[in-house]
Every structure is written in structure tokens, then in C-alpha cells.
């Protein structure tokens, strides 16, 4: 089902722009024949998906297609009803070290300051005090929240809260970063800023990343590959190689390649919407 739109990402996609950022073939996450059902309702089935080291895979699909559920299965928060997930070759049995998640509604604890929210994962791991004191400020600075360490979530805007959520996920220095519609609860301008900042951060330290979104633009901008989920129950309809080199900037949005890929994904998803409307009508 894989349609190779142009050059494959593993070949000469120009990612050598940042040295050492070329994707290695090490598969960080492998989902095979994943299926989740709630009673008689099958959410998705037959999902085969591999995320390699230093690769961003976007997942798009219509509402209710199970994008978030799939991500939760990879995080170990939800179990597949059949099929397997492996992370770094190890079969998943609940949440794994080395896997972090950024949540749609930030999931910050209102009773903790930004500093303590960011330190949360490290503290649970039992990291030594020195490590926490060194790592936490580093990531707070990286996401642009320096000076807000002592603020509480309710004192921050949505965009700043999600920066803190990102810092918390990064602070444990994961090998796999799962993003569950991280910017969907954030206003359009801030969202755009955060998209590029996330790309900057990723380009500094490229890791395997899965990015669930319902925005086609975002999926294409962020992803090295875009996975389109479709149908009832949903399956992987197509995997598109975006083939736009990093670093990606605002200019990426006006390249013909971005336009083409976006148009292609749009067509795929619109067929579904139109079909669904015909069924209803």
C-alpha cells in the first residue's frame, strides 16, 4: 500500500543538510497487525507501522479513526486486542522507559510549578538530584520558558503550557516521542510558531517521533512520512514519503513539493468524507 511519492526518505532526500541526522535503519517502533476493538466495534485493524530512528511519522485520518488510540497503544496506555507493538525490539508490556508522550490538553498538574512539572518524569525515575537540577533548566530553556520556572500552569497561556508539556516529555531524554494532537488546543498563530520550534528542537536532537494530528498541513510539515488512516474499521490507506529535507522552515510551506503532498493527502481524506456523506444522504 506504500506509495512512494518521489524519492524515498532513506535515500538521497537531502537530509544530510544536518550531518549525522540521516535516518539510520534502526527500527525504534514496530507495530504489526495491530487491532483494537471496543466490543463489536473495531476501531482499526491490520496496522503495520515502523518508525525508524531519527524519523518523524505523521498520522492523519478522519475523526474517530483511532489515531489517538494507536498512539496510546504504542505508549502502552492502551492494549492492542491483537497484534504486537515492539519498542527497540522489546515487546510492549505497559509504558516503557525511553518513550514519552505529549498530550493534547497538556496534562500539566495545576499544583506543580513549571519546574516541578518538567521534573516529574525524572523524579519518578528516581533520577539523582544533580541530574534533575542540570536537566530540567536545560529543557525549560530549550522550549523557551526560561524565567517561568516558578509559574503555575494556570498563569500561562495554552501555548506556554504546551511548551512545558514538551519540556516534560523531553526531559527524560526519550528515544521515542509520541505527540497526540499537541497543538490542536492552541490558537493558530501560536500553533505555527510551536510547529517550527518543535522542528528546531528535533533537528538539534533527532529522535523517532510519531505525530498525530487532524491537520493535513501540520502532518506534511512535520512528517518525513505521512500515514493516512481510513475506512471503518480504519486501516493504513497509504504511507506517503514527504521527501522534503530538514531543516524545514516557513519557506517549506511555499515549496511545490509541500503543495503536492498536501494536495494528495487532502484528496485521500476528502474521498472518505464525500463517501461518508453519501452514505448518510
Amino acid at each position, binding site marked *: 500500500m506504500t506509495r512512494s511519492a518521489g524519492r524515498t526518505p532513506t535515500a538521497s532526500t537531502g537530509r544530510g543538510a544536518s550531518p549525522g541526522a540521516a535516518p539510520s535503519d534502526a527500527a525504534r517502533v514496530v507495530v504489526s497487525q495491530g487491532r483494537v476493538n471496543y466490543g463489536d466495534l473495531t476501531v482499526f485493524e491490520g496496522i503495520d507501522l515502523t518508525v525508524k530512528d531519527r524519523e518523524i511519522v505523521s498520522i492523519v485520518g478522519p475523526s474517530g479513526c483511532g489515531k489517538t488510540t494507536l498512539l496510546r497503544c504504542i505508549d502502552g496506555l492502551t492494549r492492542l486486542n491483537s497484534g504486537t507493538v515492539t519498542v527497540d525490539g522489546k515487546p510492549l508490556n505497559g*509504558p516503557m522507559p525511553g518513550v514519552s508522550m505529549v498530550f493534547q490538553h497538556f496534562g500539566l498538574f495545576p499544583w506543580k510549578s513549571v519546574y516541578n512539572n518538567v521534573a516529574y518524569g525524572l523524579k519518578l525515575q528516581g533520577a539523582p538530584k544533580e541530574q534533575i537540577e542540570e536537566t530540567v533548566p536545560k529543557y525549560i530553556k530549550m522550549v523557551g520558558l526560561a524565567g517561568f520556572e516558578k509559574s503555575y*500552569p494556570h498563569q500561562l497561556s495554552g501555548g506556554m503550557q504546551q511548551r512545558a508539556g514538551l519540556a516534560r516529555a523531553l526531559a527524560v531524554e526519550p528515544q521515542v516521542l509520541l505527540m497526540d494532537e499537541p497543538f490542536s488546543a492552541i490558537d493558530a498563530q501560536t500553533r505555527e510558531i510551536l510547529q517550527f520550534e518543535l522542528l528546531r528542537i528535533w533537528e538539534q536532537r533527532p529522535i523517532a517521533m510519531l505525530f498525530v494530528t487532524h491537520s493535513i498541513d501540520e502532518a506534511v510539515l512535520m512528517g518525513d512520512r505521512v500515514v493516512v488512516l481510513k475506512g471503518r474499521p480504519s486501516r493504513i490507506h497509504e504511507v506517503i514519503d514527504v521527501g522534503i529535507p530538514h531543516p524545514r522552515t516557513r519557506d517549506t510551506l511555499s515549496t511545490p513539493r509541500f503543495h503536492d503532498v498536501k494536495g494528495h493527502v487532502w484528496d485521500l481524506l476528502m474521498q472518505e468524507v464525500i463517501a461518508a456523506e453519501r452514505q448518510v444522504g
Partner: protein
Amino acid sequence: MTEQPQIHAGAGAGRPVSAPSAGLGSAATEAVPLPGEPSGPGQAVPPGERRRERRRPPDWLLRTLAGVALLALWELAARALGSDFVARPTAVAQAVPEVFATEKFWQDAWATIWSVIEGVVIGAVAGTLLGLAMGRIRLVRWFFTSYVSALYTLPMVAVVPLMTIWLGYTSETRLVAVALSAFLPIVVTTADGSRSIPKEYLDVARTFRAKVHNIWFGIALRNAIPYLIAGLQLAIARALVTAVAVEFLAGVPGLGYSILMQTRSFQQNEAFVGVVLLTVFVVGTRALLTLARRRFLPWYGR
């Protein structure tokens, strides 16, 4: 005509009206407050003063006025009816210095209030633990829910006579009854609070592989604190009712018992001083809890 309400500078009423009305009941009752008339602009307004507060007198002033008006009405009604059986606010006020000078009054007051404090602390600790367990463990919830709600609706006064059989006419009976009546509202509210955790908090905790105790005491308990504070407010009020009831029914020495004795010997004014003190205690603890909530849970609204 000034923009800000003015206080007629009576004895002890030197506080400017524009100061934030943080204190409860600190309004000087001797001073006659005159609400200022709203007028045109031009007066200097302290920074941070909200517009709304410029147009009408502050809340505490209105509340104090309402209280004074009620007391005045009571006084007038008692005088108009010419009845000597009804205590008058002025007579109660006159009785205050005399009552305050007696050592027994303070002994009784302390006995009652201390039993409430002790009982609430015991009830709160035990109630929080059971509430947490009920909030987090389905089996525990399933087992206890109906019993807790049945006991919660049961008036504790009804079992006090039975308790005197088991524990005697002693202050232990009072403590047990008080602790039990504080325990139940805490269990109910803490169970609610530790059950209604936003799902995302739990997802975050699980993603970072939190242990059970991390979730119980790091998240469930923290999430339940606003509920716990609401429960404490209920608990203190209930505990006081129970303490007084036990004193009435079991003759345990305390403020409730002395109120009963004074009433029986027609010392109404003195009895009322005790009633007022109990009221001040409940209102005071309530204000403290509200203050604590604003200070420590600023995200939890007002």
C-alpha cells in the same frame, strides 16, 4: 461628596475603606458606617482598585450593615413586645465582660472546642485514607459506598444515648461521636475527589511509569484537596453540633452543657454569649479554610 465610601471615624474604626476587605468580622460595630454616594470622576483611586468597587461600598460593609440591621430589628421587637423571656442583643453584649471574666467559661469553651479539633483531626485523617481507598479501589468503593452514605445521612444525635451505654457519660463519648461525625463527610468528599481525576493526569503518570503510591498520594490526594477542604468545612460544623448534643444528652462538661444549665436557670444572656462564641469558632475556621484554599489552590477558582 466623595467617590469613596467614608467611615464615620468612631472609636477603633481607623481602617480606610479602600483597604482590601480580607478580615472577617473586623468591622467596628460601634462605628456608624455611612455608604458614600457615587459621584462623578476626579477622585484619586488607589491602584488596583476595581471599577465596580468604586461605585458601591465594599462587600464586608454591606454585610456588617445587614447584620447590624437584623440585630436592631431583634432588639426593637423584643422591646416592643415587652417580654422579659427573650434575650436582647444589648443585654447579651452587656453580659460579655462578666462572662469573659469567669474561668469556668473558658474551661468549658476550651473543652468543647478542643474535642472538636481533636475529633476533626482524627476523623479527617481516617476519612482521607478511607476516601482515597474508595476513590481508587473499585472493590473498596463497592463495599463501603452504601454504608457510608447510610451513616452519613443518619443524625449522629440519634446514637449518642447508645454510645453513653458503651462508653459512659464521659468526654470519650463526646470525642468518639465528634470524630465519627467529622469522619463521614470527609470520606464522601475525598472519595469523590480522588475518583474524579482528569484522565490526562493519570495518563501522564502512567506514561512515566508511576507506582501506585505515586498515583495515590501524588495525584489522587492532591486532586482531592479542594474536595477535602469542602469536606472539612462540613465536618467542623457537624462536629460542633455533635459535641454540643453529647454535652446536652450525656451531661459531659463543656460549653454546650453550660449553655443548657444557664438556660435552665434563666441566665439567657450568659447562655447567648456561649452561643456567640461557638458561632465565632465555626465562622472563623470556615474563613481560615477559605483563605487556605485561595492561598494554596489559586487555580481552583474562588
